[in-house]
């Protein structure tokens, strides 16, 4: 019996790896490592945001990751990993509001993303020394990313 233990352990481990691997493939897990916007609608919940992006003015110049992840490989995958875990946990358990809302931390990422490309005009609006304080771009330009 005891001699069988290594075999049991190895085969259970193997089964776990195989199952996890297959689940990953079946759920198109690799897609999350790409920049393809369709990956974000993989789990169906973001269909509305995806079709809104298809009609939005930024569809030709920015994909999801351009506005929703920070620059830099490490920072990007940290945010992706955190978002990915939080989203899949919420969607699998069903504990999330039906009209989904962006969380403040991710909104900050997006705000910085606006400034990646539009720094000049934003600086002109906020004043070179930030006289008007930090303004929110999407407060007014809500529909540039996803048409409403």
């Amino acid at each position, binding site marked *: 019996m005891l001699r069988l233990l290594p075999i049991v352990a190895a085969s*259970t*481990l193997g089964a776990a790896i195989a199952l996890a691997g297959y689940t990953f493939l*079946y759920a198109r897990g690799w897609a999350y490592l790409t920049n393809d916007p369709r990956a974000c609608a993989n789990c169906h919940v973001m269909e509305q945001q995806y079709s809104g992006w298809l009609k939005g003015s930024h569809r030709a110049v920015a994909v999801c990751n351009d506005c929703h992840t920070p620059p830099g490989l490490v920072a990007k995958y940290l945010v992706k990993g955190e978002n990915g875990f939080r989203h899949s946990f919420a969607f699998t358990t069903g504990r999330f509001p039906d009209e989904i809302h962006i969380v403040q931390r991710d909104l900050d990422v997006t705000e910085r993303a606006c400034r990646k490309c539009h720094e000049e005009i934003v600086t002109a609006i906020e004043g070179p020394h930030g006289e008007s304080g930090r303004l929110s771009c999407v407060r007014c330009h809500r529909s540039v990313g996803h048409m409403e």
Partner: protein
Amino acid sequence: MKRLSRTALVAVTAVAALAALAAIALLMNIFERKQEAKNPFYRVVELTDDTEDPAIWGKNFPQQYDAYLKTVDQVRTRYGGSEAVPHTPTQADPRSVVAQSRLEEDPRLKTMWAGYAFAKDFREERGHAYMLDDQTFTERQQAAPQPGTCIHCHASVYVPYKKAGGGDLIKGFEVMNHMPYAEARKQVTHPVSCIDCHDPTTMQLRVTRPGFLEGIRALKASQGIPNYDPNVSATRQEMRAFVCGQCHVEYYFKGPEKRLVYPWAKGLKIENILDYYDEVGHKDWTHADTGADVLKAQHPEFEMWNQGIHARSGVACADCHMPYMRVGALKISDHHVRSPVLNINRACQTCHHWPEEELKARVEQIQDRVFELRNRSMDALVALIGDLKAARAAGKSDADLAEARKLQRRAQFMLDFVEAENSTGFHAPEEAERILAMSIDYARQGQLALRK
């Protein structure tokens, strides 16, 4: 050493087994979602143009049907919704639960409706599930015999109308308008049902009620569009309001044949409707206290919404009262028709990106203001009715009272238009306030007319 490795092996086995278990659970969950996304519905029964029973439709559309059944809920909002009030069942009225009486909440309503059945019994409206029972058992049925016409909007009538008309919907409508209410009641079984708004083969929205078909045709004709048929010409988004406008409208019973007519031949605004009634010389009853020929406004939600910013922005009834909801990987419209204030996340936050409390506060602020004006308007009308009653008792002639009576008719209809409309002004705040301001003015003008 050997012992340690044995423990480690057992631990590895246990952890790996748990991981495998979790992977299987996740895999199944993902599989289910994928299946849901693939098949919007399974057809398990055949639906035809004669399938009246919503439970049969519910076999193909269980999610929608489950939500539809929830219209039995009685939930209050600040100004609307209904409260479950216990009721001792009697021979004439076997209901054990009813909604709160509006007449007790505001006795001025009795003065406004003096001499009309509404002064006997008027309760807060309940959900769709109760429409048929609440009409069958209201005391108004005893106060004055009601015609079969009423059934048009209190039951699923599409199949019964077709049956009564030998296959002809409009003919069946005419036949049942003629019947006394009790007889028409026997022809119907269900409150509003799937077939009243949906085509059974394509599930597309469809207008089936003759009152709306004729009303919208008259309205479009006044705008220079002859022979309008919503089932041919309306867009999908228009239909998402039209199917509700089949019933949530102002109406009257025309002539001895009691034909149901929506008074839209001159337009949907309050002045258009009043002009229409004046032109055809319609009155709903003669006011018991004043002798004025007065009108009862019904529930003009469709007309009021048409004057508001939501209608102007292309937002239909269903967008807020039946918002889209997610069920697993599916997106369906919520068939639990109810106040958007009870469902702010789905109903409002799709477009308005503000916290729920903020949105609720905005709605209630609008309603508070409209309600305040409605109360002032009610006081003005009751004052005019009091003055008219006194002048009549003092022996003034009909000619002396004619001007004030005419003003009472206008003031009263305008007030009732906002009062009977089920949004406390929210469907079109500025329009509701404009109407109430006019109502107050007409009531006070009426008092002045008596002093001449």
